[in-house]
């Protein structure tokens, strides 16, 4: 470090040199170099699994790099726990919020601190937090319990947590994943205001257009290595960035054939349902879906999409009518709905869609184990199972040592392929796909989107619930927008206007 550079520019807020982080069987970060200038917003791009979160987690004190040096404000640091990182002014806002649902905002903010010493006098702290909110423009009720708050509000609590601890280097991990377009704008303004107040921000994302809107510089990671370091935002184009992220040219348009939709397969009328907390999740929802059509459900997570998928697939009770091929399906058990020819790709791959300790083969027969030739009333024919599973493994290019590999050892993309293979091979008439490409890398996303379109061509009716508007626009024929349990509008994808959809997603616009 020559003395010249320290005279001309302020010390870097963060310097990460030659960082190597390893997990059993995986090299997550391979000699990564990264810097954060004081007062800048630096975006970290890469597809899922590239190593961005891992790298930032090491800066936040959760992991120790095997080798490499981290400097904060010019000083070499050695974090042994998150406490050390927090002490040096680093605050991380995680993608999946680290909040205790049954405690209040204030309690969550105070968690882990040495003060208050023993007795909790919450009133004083409520006031302190109120003052902090005003300084940064992050409004939320300090006495509210976390589970009562909206996702956007919870995110504000996460940011307040870091600010309360005096963080001046903030790391935001995929903060926009759970926000509506307008809320994303609010977040961007918050970030600018934070920077104006002297903070420096690392911002992890895989969404190119958001990054270009707010970042000063960006770094691209691919498979643990840096492919572009600290490049300025000027003149960046999407295609080049995508190539840096993925390693090859990415085609942004999918081939979607124009076809006439057929008969009505799914007819939802006046459906209302409660969520797990007993509050209304769906309010008088009505729409229909035809053969050979993909209907998208757009909306920010938590507005009733999960519950909608559950009432249609028999996993939740509701009032109203749900007709599948003109048979009443509302409040019927899941087994019956499967018999009606319905496939379900669930939101939760590992928690609902698969049995983690069972093999790939055993997972593929979850829906048809009682049908010939796989199984009969009493037995299961294991050689048929092996044949079936091998066939699916080949056809869907599922990468795994063998069909006997346990499901929990598969990567997200391969597990999703197993689930899709299983659901498609039942020749469904109706498919409910919930967030099918969430958390997957570009290659897997392309395959799965291709499979969905193929099903559409075969005449399957598909209900596609997704948070990625781009995905909905390219795959769907029509898009329904859901907000607070109500359908605020149904539009043709061809005529769709992003602003209008954004407005519908926040309830500011309704069209019928």
């Amino acid at each position, binding site marked *: 470090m020559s003395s010249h550079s320290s005279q001309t520019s302020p010390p870097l807020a963060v310097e990460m040199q030659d960082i190597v982080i390893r*997990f*059993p069987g*995986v090299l*997550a970060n391979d000699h990564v170099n990264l810097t954060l200038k004081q007062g800048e917003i630096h975006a970290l791009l890469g597809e899922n*699994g590239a190593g961005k*979160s*891992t790298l930032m*987690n090491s800066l*936040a*004190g*959760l992991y120790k790099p095997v080798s490499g040096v981290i400097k904060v404000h010019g000083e070499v640091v050695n974090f042994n*726990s*998150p*406490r050390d990182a*927090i002490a040096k002014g680093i605050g*991380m806002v*995680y*993608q*999946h919020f*680290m*909040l*205790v*649902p*049954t*405690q209040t905002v204030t*309690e*969550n903010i*105070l*968690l*882990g*601190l040495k003060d*208050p*010493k*023993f*007795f*909790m006098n919450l009133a004083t702290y409520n006031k302190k937090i109120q003052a902090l909110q005003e300084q940064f423009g992050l409004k939320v009720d300090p006495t509210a319990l976390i589970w009562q708050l909206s996702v956007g509000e919870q995110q504000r609590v996460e940011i307040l*947590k870091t600010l309360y601890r005096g963080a001046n280097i903030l790391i935001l*991990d995929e903060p926009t994943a759970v926000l509506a377009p307008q809320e994303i704008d609010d977040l961007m303004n918050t970030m600018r205001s934070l920077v104006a107040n002297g903070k420096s921000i690392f911002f992890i994302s895989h969404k190119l257009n958001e990054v270009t809107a707010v970042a000063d510089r960006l770094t691209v990671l691919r498979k643990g290595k840096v492919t572009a370091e600290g490049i300025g935002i000027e003149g960046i184009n999407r295609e080049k960035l995508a190539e840096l992220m993925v390693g090859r040219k990415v085609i942004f348009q999918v081939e979607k054939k124009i076809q006439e939709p057929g008969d009505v397969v799914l007819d939802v009328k006046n459906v209302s349902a409660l969520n*797990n*907390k*007993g509050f209304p999740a769906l309010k008088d929802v009505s729409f229909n879906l035809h053969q050979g059509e993909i209907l998208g459900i757009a909306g920010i997570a938590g507005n009733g999409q999960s519950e909608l998928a559950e009432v249609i697939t028999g996993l939740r009770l509701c009032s109203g009518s749900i007709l599948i091929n003109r048979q009443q399906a509302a409040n019927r058990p899941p087994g019956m709905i499967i018999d009606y020819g319905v496939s379900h790709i669930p939101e939760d791959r590992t928690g609902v869609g698969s049995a983690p300790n069972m093999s790939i083969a055993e997972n593929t027969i979850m829906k048809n184990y009682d049908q010939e030739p796989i199984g009969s009333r009493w037995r299961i024919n294991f050689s048929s199972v092996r044949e079936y599973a091998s066939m699916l493994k080949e056809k869907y290019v599922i990468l795994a040592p063998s069909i006997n590999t346990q499901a929990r050892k598969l990567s997200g993309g391969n597990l999703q392929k197993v689930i899709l293979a299983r659901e498609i091979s039942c020749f469904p008439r109706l498919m409910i796909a919930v967030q099918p490409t969430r958390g997957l890398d570009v290659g897997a996303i392309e395959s799965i989107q291709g499979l969905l379109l193929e099903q559409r061509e075969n005449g399957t009716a598909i209900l596609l619930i997704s948070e990625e508007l781009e995905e909905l626009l390219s795959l769907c024929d029509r898009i329904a927008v859901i907000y607070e349990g109500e359908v605020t509008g149904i539009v043709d994808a061809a005529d769709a206007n992003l602003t209008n959809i954004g407005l519908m997603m926040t309830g500011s616009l309704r069209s019928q």
Partner: protein
Amino acid sequence: MNPEIIIHAGLATGTILLFAAIGEIFAERSGVMNLGVEGMMLLGAMAGFSTSLVTQNVWFGLLAAIFAGGILSLAHGLVTIHFQADQVVSGLSLTFLGTGLALVLGEGLTGQNPPLIPNVSIPVLSSIPFIGQVFFGNHSILVYVGYCLIPITWYFIFKTRPGMHLRAVGEKPSAADTLGINVYRVRYFYVFVGGCLAGLAGGTISLSVSPGWYSSQTTSGQGWIAVAIVIFAQWNPVRAAVGGYLFGMLRRFILDLQGPALLFGFQNPIFMNHNLSFFLQMTPFLLTIIALVWGSQAATRKRLGSPAALGIPYIRGERGL
């Protein structure tokens, strides 16, 4: 069949359940289920009894009881927190281990008479009409300890900072972890506290409330009842105490039912046929089941539940949290 006697006895025997249940509440609120309570209680009872006998000092005995329960619980902690083994099976194995150790090491203790915990009456309070003698008159010192423990525990869990950390670790350990709280250390600590309290409960039996050593009959299932009490007390120490006292009163009531020839003016069927007393002995266990059913339904209705992370070993995720 004197209600005052029943309540008085109930407070005494209930104290045993209270200690064990509160200990289990601490452990479970941190996310670790400890089903070894019965074994820890028995080991504590034996350790307390024998140490008191050998040292002729009941306070050393009590310390030994607490210590025995604590040590056993550390084994449970190691296996479930560090080795991430299944908490149910580990707890069960420690019940066997603790019971076995207690029976083997306790050979020959039956019929011995070590010094016991003295009974005292609290000066001013015991003069209060009606309730004075019942609550504050001629009780083991440990009963008064129990009285104090209830509000202290309640306040600790709900109104203090370490209590908040405890609850956070049991609800969402990842949140606590990212804020620098050592989840492992917190869990070890509260499992240990739970074990110590279970040991204390055992010591309360053999050195105070039901003095003596009667092999496995010493605890006769009270450890399990304590675990059940935790569930239908919704992990709340005050409710657990009430449950413990009620059970204690029930036991006394059952005992009293077997004695007299006349019961409320009618001929006592149990006096006539002593074998009917077996049905009476079933009652605490049947009642535990009924209370559990009621408690589970109430929990589902109020959408309250166990600490969310109960029974799940905490592992810091590899690909982020």
